């Protein structure tokens, strides 16, 4: 008896899997997050439905739990789901101050070895900033560098922080940068460094970038000092295409570029890990003051989801959703508060859904 039910269950799951496979529907792990996270995730799901994107969502929670041995880790269901689906979309996570566990983002990074943080910064037509011609991508090495967390108190009043640069990580990030350039038809990659000051460490990073550049002759490779990049970025950002750099410089420059296009509320971001895992996220905070009031702006999460579609190869759907989003912002009729209007999140979402459906 048990055998027969088991047989039916298994065959049903197999059939379901086959059905999904035939329709080419891919499952994506969705981590709504905290604060405004659930609202914007719902918004993104609605827009994807309207666009008939072949995506099935699997919602998971990643609040840290204490595993065996006392080490903090993410819940095993979440980990399993990510490893199975390989692609994830994450909303903002809050890091409680006195909970005792490390930042959630750090935990995710360590669990899935997310070594590259990719942030494409493109000026949004309807959202005016003093910088109108930005179109660049910052690729930041996310596992080592200045954020190794290795610090010592040598004597009272003297602290030493260690910045770690390894050949392996530098080669990996450089390779990813050039692959990205090829896959997205970008023309040049610029390595950003301070090898005149940190001659050994950034020198190693630079050497690895140069070595990898040899294998990608179709992409132009240049190198530039960090201070020169900052100087030129605020004067004329149109000169830059893809920037690849170690951890700290990447953190600063990616936020600088986000500032050029209008802030963290409209900037997408993706984290690429080893074993093909990729988690796309919105980098803004959880905004607890407007949580639950239908005032949030889902643009950042939406553009990250578009990045995810491109990563998965679904360029048609990506273009559709992105155009709808930009059109809504350009029209300036239905904008959320942070973009300068006073519409609700649901109205903004509905407008984008309508545009997407009209496009078919």
């Amino acid at each position: 008896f048990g055998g027969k039910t088991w047989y039916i269950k298994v065959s049903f799951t197999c059939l379901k899997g086959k059905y999904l496979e035939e329709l080419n529907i891919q499952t994506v792990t969705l981590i709504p997050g905290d604060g405004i996270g659930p609202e914007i995730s719902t918004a993104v799901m609605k827009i994807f439905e309207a666009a008939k994107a072949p995506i099935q969502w699997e919602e998971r929670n990643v609040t840290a739990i204490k595993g065996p041995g006392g080490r903090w880790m993410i819940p095993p269901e979440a980990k399993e789901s990510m490893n199975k689906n390989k692609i994830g979309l994450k909303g903002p996570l809050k890091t409680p101050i006195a909970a005792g566990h490390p930042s959630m983002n750090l935990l995710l990074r360590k669990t899935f070895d997310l070594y590259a943080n990719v942030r494409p910064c493109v000026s949004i037509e309807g959202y005016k900033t003093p910088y109108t011609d930005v179109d660049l991508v910052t690729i930041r090495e996310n596992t080592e560098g200045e954020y190794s967390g290795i610090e010592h108190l040598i004597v009272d009043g003297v602290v030493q922080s260690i910045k770690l640069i390894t050949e392996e990580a530098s080669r990996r990030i450089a390779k990813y940068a050039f692959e990205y350039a090829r896959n997205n038809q970008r023309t040049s990659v610029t390595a950003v460094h301070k090898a005149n000051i940190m001659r050994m460490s950034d020198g190693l990073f630079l050497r690895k970038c140069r070595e990898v550049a040899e294998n990608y002759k179709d992409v132009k490779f240049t190198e530039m000092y960090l201070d020169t990049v900052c100087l030129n970025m605020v004067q004329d950002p149109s000169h830059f295409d893809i920037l690849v750099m170690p951890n700290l410089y990447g953190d600063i420059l990616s936020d600088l570029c986000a500032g050029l296009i209008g802030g963290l509320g409209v900037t997408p971001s993706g984290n690429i890990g080893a074993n093909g895992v990729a988690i796309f996220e919105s980098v803004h905070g959880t905004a607890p003051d407007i949580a639950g009031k239908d005032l949030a702006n889902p643009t950042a999460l939406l553009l990250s989801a578009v990045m995810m579609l491109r990563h998965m190869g679904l360029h048609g759907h990506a273009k559709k959703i992105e155009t709808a989003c930009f059109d809504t912002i350009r029209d300036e009729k239905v904008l959320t508060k942070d973009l300068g209007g006073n519409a609700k999140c649901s109205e903004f979402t509905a407008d984008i859904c309508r545009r997407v459906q009209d496009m078919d």
Partner: protein
Amino acid sequence: MMAATLRGSLVTLAKGLSGARLQPLCTRSLSVTSSQNVSESPPARADSTFKVTMVPGDGVGPELMTAVKEVFKAADVPVEFEEFHLSEVQNMASEEKLEEVLSSMKNNRVAIKGKIHTPMEYKGELASYEMRLRRKLDLFANVVHVNSLPGYSTRHNNLDLVIIREQTEGEYSSLEHESVSGVVECLKIITREKSRRIAKFAFDYATKKGRSKVTAVHKANIMKLGDGLFLQSCAELAELYPKIKYENIIIDNCCMQLVQNPYQFDVLVMPNLYGNIIDNLAAGLVGGAGVVPGESYSAEYAVFETGARHPFAQAVGRNIANPTAMLLSASNMLRHLNLEYHSNMVSEAVKKVIKQGKVRTRDLGGYSTTGDFVRAVVDNLRHRTV
């Protein structure tokens, strides 16, 4: 009555600049015209000039120094330069040269310099000559004045920031080693003593110049011990200056705010690497590396240079570099030497040329050469010797 007040200020000057050749000036009663009443008679010639060490550096440094010398000659400034050509990339660097520069500095105490370029390859020592000069002279504070130039509009106008950067420790410690093949460690050192020193300098500077707010820039959420110590030192010092508002901001948020709304900042103080980044960012906001002056201070010495330090090697020999930054810095140097009249003369001439907008170098969108610009400044000087 004016002579008495002037004598009084000259005496305080003599006390401040111990070692400068100032004693002869004290005994004369000078009818120096101050900037308030502009009369047409030139100041009485001092019978001794100030000696200033000059290190032209690499790239366009020598061209900029020539510009300074030309303007000083036309303005009849009582300053004499002692030149030293110290350069790592042109193979003109050696221990003896460095010693010569240091002993000259010990005599003169004031210097004007260009950027000594650091090549990326190193032979033996990881510290470059520029860093060693800074350490030997203990030039711990780097001050960059970011002021919008009237007449040249950028995306953000009417900016008025001061960026104070700790210059001797932090990420520029040059302590690196390859512990295992393929793994390099670079040490960043933060000490309480130096953090306190730069924080005190920042608050003193803010008090002296009448500024209202000091913002400390850090990354203490990640580098908890290192930048945490820096932040703690700043907070401790802030309590001693109740009239000055103190805030802190994380470096990446600071960069974002600087490009979106730079007016919220007044004086910024930070460790070494962040200072490098913010100096250049802020310089870019007002017009680039060619328009921002800067200086470095130690307890005994003052070195004047540009704010954003780049050798600009692509422009060597092409006569296109913008001497504004160096000229404004030279004017600050004259103010430091208490040659108020000449200082104002030079800075006003430079600002007038920029405001008129007819002669502009390439980085400001014009087609003039360095020579054209210098000639325009010379023409605009209020007082000229025949």
